[in-house]
Structure formats: C-alpha cells, structure tokens
C-alpha cells in the first residue's frame, strides 16, 4: 500500500445554518484515482473547494502529506501549486493566449524561465493534441479544447494531486469523450486524482475507489465494480437507479399488436 498523500479529517463546512459537509474523513493515497459521486447538492464540489482552501471551513483539517492546507497557512500559494484544480467552467484567462494561460503560473508563481515553461507547455499541449492552438485565444476554442487547455495549465505546475470538479458537465456530448480520454491517460501515468463526475461509465472505468457522498458524509465507499454492480446501501441503490430507465421502459408496440400471444 502506498503512502497517504491527501488527508481530510472531520471536515465541517456550513453556509450559515445549512451544513454542507458534516465531519467528512477521506484519505487519498499516492497514485490512487478516487471518484466522488452523489446527488446534486451533496457537497461534492464544495469538498474539492475546501481541499485547496478556496472555501473557509468551520472545523476539521486538510493535509497534503504532513502540511496542513488552510486559509491561515502562510505558504498557501506554494501548497496550492502542488494541488492542481480543474473547474467545470474551464476558467481560462480570456485576455491571454493558450500558451500564456499555461505558462502564467509557472513563470509568476514558480519563477521558472519563460523558455523552459513554454517548452514544457508546448510538449503538454502536444500530448492533448492542441500544440497548433498555442497562439489562439480561449474564445477561439471549443469547450472540449478549452477544458484540455485547463488540464494542461494544471499539469504544468507538476502538482502532486489533481482535483477535477465535474469537468465535462458543461460540455456538449461529443466533446465529453476527448476530455475523458485525457483523464484516462493521466490515470495510466499513475497520477493521483480526485474526480467529481456525473459520468458513471467513466467513473467505473477510471476509478480505483468510488466514494458515494450524500448529506455531507460518505455513505458508501468501494471499488468501482462492487459499487456499481452491488451497491450496499439503499441510498446508493436509489441513486444509481436514477441512471437507468429499465423500470419505465414501455413494451415494444409489436408485442402488443400480436394477437397470437
């Protein structure tokens, strides 16, 4: 078993009276791909936002190896460099070209020389099939291309762990695949990833472990085959049922019309 890389302990997040995360514990080990699923509003995205301290939390702790990540951490920018995050809405910087989007943080935050940062950026863009779009602006790209650039922008920082927040939810169906392929490629490279997604088939394919979140706590946690084929808790069963239509499928018209049966 590899060592724990990311640890979440007793995380409590409230918005006013509303408790979103209620004492959540989670450990992600090095090289592990953990997929978080759950109904809308269960706190999946909030969890990711708490992990890199974009949200203030009410109690609990988040640690990268041994270093606590919190809004009070003095070296928070340095810690965030090690935690890559990709947003549902891409959040590329519209005033910068693709190449500048990718090299901004390496140059400003890591003080890397422009030439070196650009060399790596171009190599990564090549890997996701976008090297020829390096001089374009974000608005000239499709959603799927933008999201691939956003992934490269996170990768170029050499993060120890990557957080993906419903990165295909805003995409047209035919663009979902090109982004998921990039994520599958990263999984094959042995990257540590925490993925929030609503793509159940993808979750089954990529996950080492699936976490089902509901009501601000982990309700079920299992390897993907076990979770998807034999969910243990009624809540997970009910959730997974919403993705199938067998129960409401109408009989085929021909079987009704056949008088001999």
């Amino acid at each position, binding site marked *: 078993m590899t060592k724990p890389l990311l640890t979440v302990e007793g995380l409590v997040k409230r918005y006013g009276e509303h408790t979103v995360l209620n004492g959540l514990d989670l450990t992600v080990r090095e090289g592990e791909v953990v997929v978080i699923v759950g109904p809308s509003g269960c706190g999946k995205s909030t969890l990711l936002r708490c992990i890199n301290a974009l949200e203030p939390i009410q109690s609990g702790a988040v640690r990268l190896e041994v270093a606590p990540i919190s809004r009070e951490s003095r070296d928070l920018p340095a810690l965030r460099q090690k935690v890559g995050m990709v947003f549902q809405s891409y959040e590329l910087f*519209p005033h910068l070209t693709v190449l500048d989007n990718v090299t*901004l943080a390496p140059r400003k935050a*890591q003080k890397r020389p422009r030439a070196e940062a650009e060399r790596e950026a171009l190599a990564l863009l090549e890997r996701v099939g976008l090297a020829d779009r390096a001089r374009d602006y974000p608005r000239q790209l499709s959603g799927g291309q933008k999201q691939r650039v956003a992934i490269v922008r996170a990768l170029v920082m050499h993060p120890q762990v990557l957080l993906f927040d419903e990165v295909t939810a805003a995409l047209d169906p035919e663009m979902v695949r090109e982004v998921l392929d990039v994520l599958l490629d990263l999984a094959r490279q042995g990257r540590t990833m925490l993925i929030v997604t609503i793509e159940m088939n993808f979750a089954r394919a990529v996950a080492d472990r699936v976490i089902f979140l509901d009501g601000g706590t982990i309700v079920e946690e299992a390897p993907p085959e076990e979770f998807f084929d034999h969910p243990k808790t009624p809540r997970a069963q009910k959730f997974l049922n919403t993705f199938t239509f067998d129960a409401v499928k109408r009989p085929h018209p021909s079987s009704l019309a056949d008088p001999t049966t």
Partner: protein
Amino acid sequence: MSIAVLRDYLPLFARSALLTVRLGALGILLAVLVGVLCSAAQYFRLPVLQQLSAVYIELSRNTPLLVQLFFLYYGLPKLGIRTDPAVCGVAGLAFLGGSYMAEAFRSGLEAVDRVQLESALSLGLTNAQAMGSVILPQALSISMPALVANVIFLLKETSVFSAVSLMDLMFTAKDLIGLHYNTVESLTLLVVFYLLILLPISILGSLVERRLRYAGSGT
C-alpha cells in the same frame, strides 16, 4: 469675424489652455488614484474603509463641482486653512472625479467573475499576482470606455474653475468679451481650444479601447 482679433487673442487662449490642461491632468491623475483606492476598499470589502468610500462617493457625485470649489475656496480659509486657487481647482477636480473613477473601476472589477480569481489562486498565484495578471487586465479592459468618458467629462468640468479666479479658457473668454465685446472671436477660439484638447483624447481613447478589447470574452 476679424482675423486680426483672432490673431491677437491666440496667445492669451493658448496660455489659458495650458493652465486648463495642466490643472486638469493633475486633478484627473489624483482622481484616478482616489478611484483605485475607493474601488479596492469596496472590492475587498475592507471594514470601515468600505463604508467611508461609499459615503464619499455619494457626497461627491451628488453635489456640483462649483459648490465643491466654493467650499474649498471660501470655506477652508474660515477653518484657518489657506489655499490658493490652483490647489482648490485640482483638489476640487480630484474630489469630484474620484467618485466617478471609483465607480468605473468597480463596475470593471465586478464584471470579472470571482471564479477567475479562484482559478488563479488555485494555480498557486498570490493574491497580488492574481490581481495584477488576471483580474486587473480584464477589469481595466471593461472599465476603459467609462474611464475615457470620465476624463473628457472632468476636463470639461474645468470650465467652472474661473469661479475661483483661475485664468482657464472660460475665464479668458469671459474676460475678453467683457473688455472688448469681441464675442464671436472669443467664443470661436473658446470652442476651438476645447476641441483641440478634447478631440485627441477622444480619438486616443477609442484606440486604447479597441486595443484593450482582449480577444473578446469567453473563459
């Protein structure tokens, strides 16, 4: 209209145009500074400063420049603070313009989605780096039309400077009309000089706006 009169008046108008531009530029520069500070207080929701700047903005925007100038020129000496007309003019323009600039900057900042800031922070940029490289360039591009409009508006407002005995363009025109009744020549030169100052700014402003209209939006 007499060409000879125009020629005679030209140096007088040129000199007062210089005063208009000099005091106007200084006042606008200070107004931009005040505007940046006020909008920053509001964007970062700094306690106390945020409320103070809100009060200032309402006070400044809802009183005429002439009244503000009179207050500075006649009011301050009563409190034992001696001011000369030029200082009054610049201070008045900065006081009026600061609120307009603050509102222009604020609208630009608010138009940039907060998740852009989060996106920059999550890459490991510091707050200052995120503001400087990600938020401000976008905000400035959005604010630019309002900022240019403010500069033109404030330069035109300098025409009330004559009320506190500053020899600006308006003062010179009124003075010459009173002395020689050459109304047509004086008013013609007045209009020409205002256009000479403002038209280049207007054109330059449009160019800058176009230059800063960053490859559209769309993140």
